[in-house]
């Protein structure tokens, strides 16, 4: 397997412009002859599907939810970054590029990141034109705020519902194309298999989740925009339906999986209450702009927070990272919380929590100002915990939130399977080993609106003639048979454990042994436990009902089976990366003050895994990372 990043030559700032000029074009009369399948309808999928249809391609879009508007991009709260420099505080494309490279701990590809920063300004223009109601100042111009990991205010937001508003913008653009007959939308359909013919991605096999029918769909290019695999930890801020199935099936058909061990643990989530817990809820990191994080200085101090005097509190982020304080990067903040809880200074019934306190901000700005900024988040917190955060500090703890790893893609966002493009969180491209706050929305929309519509055209222009792929080809029939066989197998086991039960166990293994910090011993233990869990799953899962109806247990079972396998690759990747970088923290590799210690000599590269079949271990390939513009430094938030 060859990992050719296809990064264009020339100075960094000119690469994308030059590349666009060098691309093959498809004339308007020919565009309508090409078919594109888009799987996923979140920010990346919906924006790509709409933009490709606007250009004239025939587009089919698939989502497992009942409407494309439900995709989990909708839950992003805080905002979207863009290098507009409206606040005149020194931001620029160059600075956003640099912050993103540094935030990713020098494990991302320079050219991709620069392009992301470059098109960030177009995203804001596009969204405003669509009617996205971003927050505004009294003069009528757009408002900005600062966000975790940045010292400039470059984040645009729509109250605490930025993801929702951006997704509705993309969804409306998509619905417009559906109404015009340019996009065929398939809701409640889940991709089950990628179909590769003569080395090119030519279609997918899906299951109609309402009727159970297995269907083939052919195309000239396939786009996966199916999000991340954060639910490998079971409890996560992801939606319940979030899964790794589409990318995992593509991996098994030849798409390399890059950096699976880069998983982000978000520092500000509501702590777990009990075994019944089905998901964790994020409290936007924008709260760290005004909230102060602390724990008692003394271990086992169980006085109510309001009765702990100020000099007996440890505002540990401000103490350890005076320059960034409560705004230090996500991975740094998460680990710091784990550290104080491991010391026995955690708060709440479980001892796995820290305070996020607004008393000072309320004292300074008044309760109304805080309500205006975060009202909906405070309400949500109160609804879940039954505590009033205006009166008593919030309790927060880190939770699985985002996955920087994903399918390997080149500069054109094409995977190692020709004609298979991967967008948004599903790819690995832009965030390196750690993503900055408010950058996921930016990347999803950059890929979907401004990158893939160009690069897919270039692919069509370069390949030119496609033999028509019909769904009666043997490759489609074989894939359909595989899907039917797997369904039959899952239904036939009739064991005594539910799919959720296995998912919970997977989550425990992953969180305990491959979560916020990792070590060789734990990873080896996980790599022994996971194959056993996989065997136990295929012996003991119980899926009621049939395959020819709406069957939510069957859907879950299929997703959990894939997540167990994906978890194994994640642990293997974590084991092989013998350094700490960004969100990947290996206990063996840390500085005396417990910061991540990178090994640029040996690990300044992307690790991309190639599937070698059921009975052979996957092969690790390497794409070296060259830093010509941002110079390798030790990341510091002090």
């Amino acid at each position, binding site marked *: 397997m060859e990992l050719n990043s296809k990064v264009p030559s020339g100075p960094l700032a000119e690469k994308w412009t030059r590349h666009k000029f060098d691309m093959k074009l498809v004339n308007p009369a020919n565009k309508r002859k090409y078919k594109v399948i888009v799987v996923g309808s979140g920010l990346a999928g919906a924006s790509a599907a709409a*933009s490709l249809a606007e250009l004239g391609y025939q587009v089919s879009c698939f989502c497992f*939810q*009942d*409407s494309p*508007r*439900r995709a989990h991009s*909708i*839950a992003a709260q805080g905002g979207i970054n863009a290098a*507009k420099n*409206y606040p005149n505080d020194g931001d620029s494309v160059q600075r956003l590029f640099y912050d993103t490279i540094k935030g990713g701990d020098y494990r991302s590809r320079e050219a991709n990141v620069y392009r992301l920063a470059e098109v960030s300004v*177009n995203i804001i223009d*596009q*969204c*405003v*034109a*669509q*009617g996205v*109601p971003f927050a*505004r100042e009294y003069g*009528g*111009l757009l408002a900005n705020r600062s966000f975790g990991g940045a010292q400039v205010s470059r984040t645009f937001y*729509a*109250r605490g*519902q930025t993801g929702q*508003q951006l997704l509705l913008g993309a969804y409306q*653009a998509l*619905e*417009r194309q*559906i*109404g015009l007959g340019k996009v065929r*939308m398939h*809701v409640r359909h889940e991709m089950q298999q990628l179909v590769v013919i003569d080395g090119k991605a030519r279609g997918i096999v899906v299951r109609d989740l*309402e009727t159970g029918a297995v269907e083939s769909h052919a195309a000239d290019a396939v786009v996966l925009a199916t999000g991340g695999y954060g639910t490998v930890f079971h409890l996560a*801020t992801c939606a*319940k339906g979030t899964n790794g199935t589409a990318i995992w099936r593509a991996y098994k058909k030849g798409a390399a999986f890059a950096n699976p061990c880069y998983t982000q643990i978000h520092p500000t989530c509501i702590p777990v209450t*009990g075994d*019944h*817990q*089905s*998901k964790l*809820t994020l409290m936007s990191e924008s709260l760290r702009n005004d909230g102060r994080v602390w724990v008692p200085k003394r271990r086992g101090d169980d006085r*109510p927070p309001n009765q702990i005097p100020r000099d007996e509190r440890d505002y540990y982020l401000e103490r350890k990272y005076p320059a960034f304080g409560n705004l230090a990067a996500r991975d740094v903040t998460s680990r710091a919380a784990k550290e104080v809880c491991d010391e026995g200074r955690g708060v*709440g019934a479980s001892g796995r929590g820290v305070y996020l306190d607004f008393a000072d901000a309320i004292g300074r700005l008044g309760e109304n100002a805080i309500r205006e900024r975060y009202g909906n988040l405070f*309400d*949500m917190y109160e*609804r879940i*915990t*039954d*505590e*009033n955060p205006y*009166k*008593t500090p919030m309790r927060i703890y880190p939770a699985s939130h985002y996955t920087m790893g994903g399918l390997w893609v080149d500069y054109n966002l094409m995977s190692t399977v020709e004609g298979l493009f991967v967008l948004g969180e599903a790819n690995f491209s832009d965030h390196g080993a750690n993503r900055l706050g408010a950058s996921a929305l930016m990347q999803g929309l950059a890929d979907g609106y*401004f990158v893939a*519509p160009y690069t897919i055209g270039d692919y069509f222009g370069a390949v030119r003639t496609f033999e028509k792929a019909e769904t009666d080809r043997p490759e489609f029939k074989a894939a359909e048979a595989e899907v039917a066989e797997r369904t039959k197998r899952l239904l036939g086991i009739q064991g005594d454990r*539910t799919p*959720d039960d296995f998912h919970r166990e997977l989550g425990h293994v992953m969180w305990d042994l491959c979560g916020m910090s990792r070590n060789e011993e734990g990873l080896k233990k996980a790599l022994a436990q996971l194959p056993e869990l996989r065997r136990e799953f295929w012996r003991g899962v119980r899926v*009621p009902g049939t395959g020819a*109806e*709406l069957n939510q*247990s069957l859907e879950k079972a299929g997703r959990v089976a894939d997540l167990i396998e994906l978890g194994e690759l994640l642990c293997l990747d974590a084991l092989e990366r013998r350094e700490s970088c960004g969100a990947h923290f290996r206990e063996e590799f840390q500085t005396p003050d417990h910061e991540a210690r990178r090994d640029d000599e040996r690990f300044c590269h992307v690790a991309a895994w190639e599937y070698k079949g059921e009975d052979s271990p996957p092969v690790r390939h390497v794409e070296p990372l060259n830093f010509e513009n941002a110079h390798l430094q030790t990341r510091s938030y002090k």
Partner: protein
Amino acid sequence: MAGHAEEKLLNLTLRVWRQKDRADKGRFETYKEEARGISTDMSFLEMLDVVNERLIKSGREPIAFDNDCREGICGQCGVVIDGAPHGPRRATTTCQLHMRSFTDGAELTVEPWRAAAFPVVKDLIVDRGAFDRVVAAGGFVSVNTGNAPEANGLPVPKQDSDLAMDAAACIGCGACVAACPNASAMLFVSAKAQHLNLLPQGQPERDSRSLAMLDQAQAEGFGSCTLHAECEAACPKEISIKFIARTNRDYARAAARKPR
């Protein structure tokens, strides 16, 4: 912990609507054993998860219900609990409703949204495709990717932008339809239309949007609005019916200006 009610365990009786598929007539089934020992810290959907785990283990079919984000924003969940869409708590989706809102020994009736335009797919799941078709009819600004002018080129008064955001907060769950005695979708349609009609970007298509969306809603089989305001009370995002008044005006204006 200050203000935090202690966790308690509830024994409930659930009467749940079970319907195999679109063609099935459907009926209520009662679950008592399966709904014992429910923690007040659970969300309503986590309670259903627990009931389903117990049903599966005893060889029965779990209750199908829609859900996804479980943090009150995706709009995919929603059931009628004792006649109230999303249950008894104001401004709360079913996934954010916690069992501490119920008392020990309670008997709860759980049904899907009931409306001709929302056919039941299975158990508590309905087909809300009609909402998507209303949006496809006109709920957008016709701007292709790449067409956009500089974002700050057009200032928008903060109060207009804030009002548009109030409308745009709609999550498209359909509780408004379920709450309405006429099964009207007027609150949803108005929220979607006014989000754009209130902004300068939405002006060029204000008339065509207002006509197309309302006509589509009628074609889908939603009832007419007679201002009962049940929708506003049921809306988990507290969308105001003042947007309905604005939409009626926009529709009348557009109809009057329409070239004959």
